[in-house]
């Protein structure tokens, strides 16, 4: 049942991506059609996750393949919320394919149903996972906003105007939005790390075990922290800030996707 729902979700995301691209290249950002399709995908996605949650409990999001689905769901959800206030249809053109790739990757990784050992079933785990993923999802959106900023900035610098660019928001509002996302994402990430390490302290016996995932999140955390600090005190903004934001997300995403395969980690479903 939920396999079908997830397939439907993926289909909705890929259709939404296609419509976003068509509309963007036609220079039409007024249409609500792509956002509506994305919203449809999100609703189906919600149903699928809920159904799986009732079957498996929190294991539904704690296993690698399934975690990706949860992550994509959060990202699309936050984007849709943002759309209410910012009308950033262009960003939908980045979020939709990203969400599609994530659901696709979830299928590829498979969803081998790992059981969470009984001893680990405390409220720390869902709290940690939710906070960490929320942070990641916010940074995924910041990545998209930064990418749009860089495209727009490049064209303005090189004095090449295209119809597509006209539909982009101004650099000023992109940069401000990027900052807002950082301001939300950083505390979420911080809390995610803190809860994670408390959980680790309880179940593994030590708060910090140099687990590769822990290291990579620490790197990303330092990076985002430096960025936030730079923005507040030193007027770090615009292109450099956008590049840093994108780099930070690459660290997060890179480890999220491939880290488990390269280095064995206790994240990603292995709890021993």
């Amino acid at each position, binding site marked *: 049942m939920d396999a079908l729902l997830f397939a439907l979700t993926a289909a909705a995301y890929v259709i939404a991506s296609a419509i976003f691209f068509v509309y963007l290249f036609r220079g039409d950002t007024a249409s609500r059609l792509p956002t509506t399709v994305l919203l449809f995908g999100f609703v189906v996605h919600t149903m699928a996750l809920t159904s799986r949650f009732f079957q498996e409990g929190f294991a539904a999001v704690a296993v690698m393949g399934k975690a990706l689905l949860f992550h994509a769901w959060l990202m699309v959800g936050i984007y849709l919320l943002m759309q209410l206030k910012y009308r950033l249809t262009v960003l939908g053109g980045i979020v939709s394919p990203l969400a599609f790739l994530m659901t696709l990757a979830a299928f590829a990784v498979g969803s081998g149903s790992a059981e969470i050992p009984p001893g680990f079933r405390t409220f720390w785990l869902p709290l940690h996972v939710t906070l960490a993923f929320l942070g990641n999802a916010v940074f995924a959106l910041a990545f998209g906003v930064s990418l749009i900023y860089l495209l727009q900035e490049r064209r303005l610098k090189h*004095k090449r105007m295209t119809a597509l660019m006209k539909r982009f928001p101004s650099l000023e509002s992109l940069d401000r939005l990027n900052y807002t996302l950082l301001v939300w994402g950083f505390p979420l990430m911080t809390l995610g790390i803190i809860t994670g390490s408390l959980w680790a302290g309880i179940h593994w016996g030590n708060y910090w075990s140099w687990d590769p995932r822990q290291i990579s999140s620490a790197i990303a955390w330092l990076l985002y922290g430096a960025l936030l600090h730079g923005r507040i005190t030193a007027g770090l903004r615009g292109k450099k800030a956008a590049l840093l934001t994108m780099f930070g997300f690459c660290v997060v995403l890179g480890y999220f996707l491939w880290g488990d395969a390269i280095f064995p980690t206790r994240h990603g479903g292995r709890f021993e």
Partner: protein
Amino acid sequence: MQNEIVIVGLNHRSAPIEVRESVAFENSYVRAALGRLRNYPSVREGVILSTCNRVEVVAAASDSQSAFNDITEFLGEKKAHRNSLPLEDHVYTYRGAEAVRHLFRVAASLDSMVVGEPQILGQLKQYYDTAQQAGTVGTILHRLFHRSFSVAKRVRTETGIGSGAVSVSSVAVDLAKRIFDRFDDKTVMLIGAGKIGDLMARHLLSQGVRSLMVTNRTFERAVLLAEKIQGSPIRFEDFPRYLTMADLVTGCTAAAEVLVEAPTVEKVLRDRKQKAMFFIDIGDRRNFDPKINDLDNVYLYNIDDLKSVAEDNLQGRSNEAEKAEEIVGNEVESFVRWMESLEQVPTITALRRRFEEIRRKEIEKSLGGNLKDLSESQRAALEDMTAAMINKLLHAPISQLKRNSGDEDDDSALYVAALKKLFDLEGK
């Protein structure tokens, strides 16, 4: 009986400016001119349009050929006492569907010198109002003009025509909008208080800029312009100190020297915590160091850059123009259909009248002759019978005619013409 839309006019392509000027109507005389126009027997309804790029008379006329002559004479009469360039070489004439198309294209700014410029629609509305006040607008022109306004609106909303910037200063504003989100919290510095600076300032004010600084080598001129645009004048030797405050810097002096160097801007940026700056070098000479554009968060456009952006916009617009022409084409079709349906009603009435006349005549003849002994009730029955016969005979052709008017590829005009000819309806 029959009405046709005709247009006689001259525009920026058909006539040089001297000729256009010689026939142009001053605003205050348009009403009087409309009165004179109405005196021509061929003109039933009329609207005069007179802008700096075109002078046109749009009319509903009974006979297009005599209307062409009359209106050309009307336009020429006005210019006769100015000079004597031959007018016929410069005017164009349209009738029927072509006239409708022409007006729609004018309204949608497809016929403008700068395609997509928005003023023409306002002017069209204004001249239409004048004609309406003068009482020279009837059913046909009323419908035609209102249609043309909505065509213009459709073209504006459904195509990119009109969204691209046209003049250099509006290109600059357009670019500024891609950098800045809003203007009411931005500060503009004008270096050079000349005409271009003035124009640029007005453009920016209309975008919501509230804080303007003006500097000029001759301080008095800076003061003068600052007063006009409610900005603050700054002494020329002081302006580098104020750069930190400026988000948008416009250089439009006649000086051939570089007034702002890249290292200066680099320092300014540090002082303003890297907040974005937009330099516009709009004068003929370069006032800003080109290296400024290499700095982060700073954008520099000179006059050539702006011009090439304006051209890019124009190119993008030719595709949009095709879309616009398509909209106009569809609208012309539906308007022409309406015109034709307008003709059906009188034709149907005339047809009925003609049959009724014959019936009346024949009944009178018979009742006066062979049938004069009929009783009152027999006479009534005869009346009923003949009336019913005519109704039955006319039922099929009339309903056919009415049905046709709604069709896509209708031949109603053909039927109307055939009926008129077959039953000699025109003569009556």
